[in-house]
């Protein structure tokens, strides 16, 4: 589904933030992208979406990420931004949720039906009519996730989906992500969550892959994690 070959991304010339990265992600896989602050996780996601220029080759569903393919590629990708303030731009949550589907040709009624189903699934039905700028940080996060799910993308890119969430909502998000059939790439510093909903983990360090393997193996490797400024997931460290 996603294929990267020798991908580099830089904000400033000569100072790549992502350095010569190559990996492949299969359809339906759920991959945790972890790494210290500034490792390049968000940058990599933006490059996948074609929001940042990259060198090397990025293929999404067989299509190269380049200008002509962007609409088709973005149709397939759903992106939850690290900062939900910048994700929501319509007056109410419901307006925001129907925005995407209607841009892709659904009628208002169909789009609202989709939105309602997603909200129900996330136990958020009472959020629908709320004003976006009056939501709490965590409510915004949940709403942002809902807007992306309502678009039914083939691949979900989620940048820190559980930051700001209370334990109840965090659990809902983990369960929802876990039960989705789509290909998923999730970044998080919440390694317990990665352990719960990802089968594979890619560990980024300073723009390069430091490790890539089954979640159960990498997230148990205390020495590896600590070498990259992380700790064992709580659920594993108690054992």
């Amino acid at each position, binding site marked *: 589904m996603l294929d990267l070959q020798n991908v580099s991304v830089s904000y400033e010339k000569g100072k790549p933030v992502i350095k010569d990265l190559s990996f492949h992600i299969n359809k339906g896989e759920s991959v945790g992208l972890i790494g210290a602050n500034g490792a390049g996780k968000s940058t990599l996601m933006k490059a996948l*979406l074609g929001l940042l220029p990259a060198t090397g080759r990025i293929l999404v569903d067989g299509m190269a990420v380049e200008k002509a393919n962007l609409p088709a590629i*973005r*149709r397939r990708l759903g992106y939850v931004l690290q900062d939900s303030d*910048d*994700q929501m*731009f319509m007056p*109410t949550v419901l307006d925001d949720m129907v*925005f*995407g589907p209607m*841009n892709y040709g659904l009628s208002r009624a169909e789009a609202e039906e989709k939105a309602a189903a997603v909200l129900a699934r996330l136990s958020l039905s009472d959020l629908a009519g709320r004003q976006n700028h009056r939501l709490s940080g965590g409510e915004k996060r949940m709403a942002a996730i809902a807007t992306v799910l309502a678009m039914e993308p083939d691949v979900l890119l989620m940048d820190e989906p559980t930051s700001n969430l209370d334990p109840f909502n965090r659990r809902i998000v983990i369960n929802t992500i876990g039960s989705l059939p789509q290909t998923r790439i999730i970044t998080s510093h919440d390694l317990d969550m990665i352990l719960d909903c990802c089968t594979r983990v890619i560990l980024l360090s300073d723009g390069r892959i430091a490790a890539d393997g089954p979640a159960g193996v990498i997230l148990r490797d205390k020495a590896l994690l600590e070498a990259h400024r992380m700790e064992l997931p709580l659920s594993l460290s108690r054992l």
Partner: protein
Amino acid sequence: MSKTETALRELAQMDELAAGDSPVHRLHPLPKLVLTVLYIVLVVSFGKYDISGIIAMLLVPVLLYQLSGIPVRTCFFKLRYVLPLVLAVGIFNPFFDKAPLLAIGQVKISGGVVSMITLMAKGILSLMASFLLMATTRLDSLCSALRKLHVPSLLVTLLLLTFRYVGLLTEEVAVMSEAYHLRAPGQKGIHISAWGSFLGQLLLRTMDRAEDLYNSMRLRGFNGDFPYAAPPRFSVRDLLVLLLGAAVLLLLRFVPVASMLGSLLVR
């Protein structure tokens, strides 16, 4: 929060007013937009001494504010930082144009005073009309209406983003000055030595956020059209509203209603 911040926030909360429900809210955005523009053009077109004509034009917004359930007070309250600018426009007229124009009893009123008043009135009426449009029409519906009038999508998108940008700007100002004051307790305003970096940061932060916002619109399929805000089909009823509204406005502009009423009463 400081006074400026609250004022700025209020301005950004137009969306909430626009989400209301009233006969004016329910009007199709297209005739609303066209009639508002027509109204402003007509108001501005009055001669500089034509006070009575302009007063007649006041009828329209007063009536529509009533109908829409938006208190005129809200308009002036929200625009209280813009109003002085509008009022300042004619302030020097009395000094240049001193010839007496009319007399009320013993008091002679100079042409300058009259033209100052008409200029101010034109400004206020135009503001009232634009505010009413914004307060009763969602921004996206408005943009969609503009597209229907074949305004280029680049221009419309720019308009939409500018409004969103103003929202972001106010949010960032609020957040940053809060952060500033938490670390500079007891200080009034922002110290002049910090203005440079404050403004620089403000610009960088809002540009970044505006870009993110625009990106997240594009990522969800936005391409300069507004299918999600498309108003219902333009019906015969909407056409009637447009024609009738235009007729009333033209009547008010070109038939001296006020003086006719006046002479009726005197007679």
